[in-house]
Structures are given as structure tokens and as C-alpha cells.
């Protein structure tokens, strides 16, 4: 019974982490758009390459934030949540 509960917890955490990382699609598409626009801009005005590149990097890094939130959630679910949940379960069983 206990093993089953722990297994469900671990599996749930892993599934949750995997689902959380679906958010990685968003920044991927967004950054792709940003880079495409930057390439277009450089193609149109090659003399602005430096400023376009730095602005694009800046925007990419900001757009990446949502993906990083997802990453943080996934890391929490993989490395932190199982211990926490199992401890809670054990305490509940003991009580």
C-alpha cells in the first residue's frame, strides 16, 4: 500500500514535470519569431547589425523567462517535491 502511494507520488511528479516543460514550446516559437524578424531587419539594413543583434538577444532573454519558469517548476517537481510529499505521507501514516 505504502509502496503504491510512493509510486503514485513519484510518477505524478515526473508526469507533472514533463507536462510543465510543454511551456518550452512558447519561448521556442517566440524566439524563433524574434530571430526571424532580426534576420529580416539585418537583411534590410546591414549597417544596423550590432544594435539589432543586441536588442534581439535582450528580447530573447526576456522571452525565455516563461520557459525558465516551467524549468523551475519541473526541477521543483523532480528534485524537491517527491521528498516533501513522501515525508508528508510518512508523517500522516505514522500519525
Amino acid at each position, binding site marked *: 500500500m505504502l509502496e503504491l502511494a510512493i509510486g503514485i507520488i513519484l510518477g505524478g511528479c515526473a508526469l507533472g514535470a514533463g507536462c510543465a516543460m510543454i511551456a518550452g514550446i512558447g519561448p521556442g516559437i517566440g524566439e524563433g519569431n524574434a530571430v526571424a524578424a532580426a534576420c529580416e531587419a539585418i537583411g534590410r539594413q546591414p549597417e544596423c547589425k550590432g544594435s539589432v543583434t543586441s536588442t534581439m538577444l*535582450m528580447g530573447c532573454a526576456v522571452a525565455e523567462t516563461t520557459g525558465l519558469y516551467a524549468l523551475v517548476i519541473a526541477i521543483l517537481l523532480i528534485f524537491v517535491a517527491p521528498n516533501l510529499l513522501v515525508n508528508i505521507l510518512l508523517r500522516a501514516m505514522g500519525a
Partner: protein
Amino acid sequence: MKQKSIGFIAADIIYILMMTLPFLAAIVLKVLTTPLSDGVEITGARIFFTIPMPIQDLLVTEAQINSLCVMIALFGLCLFLTHGLRTRDISVRQHLAEWIVEKVDKLVNDSMGNYFMNFAPFIIAILGLSAFSSFTCLLGLFPPTSDINIVAGWAILVFILITYNKLKCGPVHYLKGFTEPVAFLAPINFISEFATPISMAFRHYGNVLSGSVISVLIATALQGLSNLLLGWLPGFLGEIPFLQVGLPAVLSIYFDVFSGGLQAFIFAMLTMMYVSDGFPMEEYFARKKAKEDKKSTLKQKTEVN
């Protein structure tokens, strides 16, 4: 070329030691405290000792020690760069110091405006601390920026600065800012206000951590691969992960140097942007001017009387 005095050279040597010794000590500490057959795993910073404190125990961790080392090294760098400043036939290090100061001045002036010029040293500090904290993992140390506590401290300081600048027109004006554009959006504005430091902290932390997670994953995979391919070698030769030699170094160029430097730059840029956006420039100057006008009229009145 003037002959350098012995005192000058001694001071230089002291500064250079200030820059290098902390990292050496940190490496020695890491080697001493790392258990032998640890393998590679994804964990937080190592806890050296705990000090009991009122609300929560203070944990003295590797991240804290490393960030202290970075601070000492940066202090040494500052002293080294500004040692022997002259007005003519300047040395290379003075060129570097002037380049840093002028670049950051220009950056601050471009993105914040003339009013915030006293932010320039803060931007230098934040850039240096963040970038060099990320670069410490080139030495095999635990990068302090991949500890959420360190980055959260910086983000909270930035939040304090933003709020301080917003409060320059009085608390009423500050609270009125939440009811824009519509009054019932106030709770959401309030949440987004407090999301700023959290997002800044998680952005920086997540970037550095994701780099180290990927590095660890690749290192583990390479170890497994080399065990599989070269495990038939006799004795201890089979246990050495030869495949771990090349690829992680190349990856660390991207994840540590490029990503770390970019994140430091972005943290500084966002700091400047949030602070200068939060500051109600027109309102502040209008009020200041009104106050001065009032003062001058009062003065005139008293003079007339």
C-alpha cells in the same frame, strides 16, 4: 617609462593576490569537502555549517562563500585598476578602468537619462558581481548565481530601488499608479508589481541553473558512454571517463561564459529599465518646479514686507 617603486610593485602583488587567492581557497575548500565517490548529481550548494538564528537557521553555504570570494576579487580588481592613476601617458589598466567607467556611463545615460547618473557605480557592481559569479563555474566552483537566495537578494534590492523611486512623488501618487488604466485592475497591478523581483530572480537563476543541469546531464551521459565503450580496458583505466574530456568544455563556453555574461547584462538592463520606468519623471519635475516657484514668491513677499 618611469621605474616603478618597490612599494608600487608590492601593492600590485597584494592586489593580484586579492584577486586570485579567494578562488584558490574556494577550490581547496571544495576539494576538501567533496566526498570521494560522489558522482555527478544535481543538487544545491553545499552547506558548510549552520548558525542558529531567530526565524530560520542561517546556512553558510558554498554559494555564500563563493560570492564573498567574488566580492573580494572584484574589490581587488577595482584597487588594481585604479592603482597609479595618471592624467597622461596612462597605463593599460587605466585604459581599462576608464573604458569600463565610460561605457557604463554611456549605457546608463542612454537607457535611464541624465537624472540617474549616480546609478552608474551600482550598475558596474551588479554587472561585475553577476558576471563573475557565473564565471566561477569555469574554475569548477559552484556558481553563486545558481542559488536562488543570492539572486533573490539582488532582485529584492532592485525592487527596493524601484519602489523608492516610485515613492519620490509621495505615497498618494504611488498608490494612484495602481488604479491605472482602470480602477478594478488594482489587484492585478499589485501582483505584477511584486512579480517583478520574482521574475528577475528566477530568470537569472533559471538560466544559470539550466546550463548547469544540461552540463551535468551531458557529463553523466558521457560517463555512461565511456563506461560502455572503454570498460574492457584493464584495471583502473576502464574507470576513467575519457569521453568527458572535450565536449563539456565546449558547452561550458556557451552555458557559462555567453549565457552568464548575457544574463548579467540583462539583469543590469532590466534594473535600469524598471527603475527609470517607475520614476514619475514629469510629475516629479513639475512638483519640484512648483515648489521652487512657491519658494521664490515667498521670498519676494518677505523681501517686500
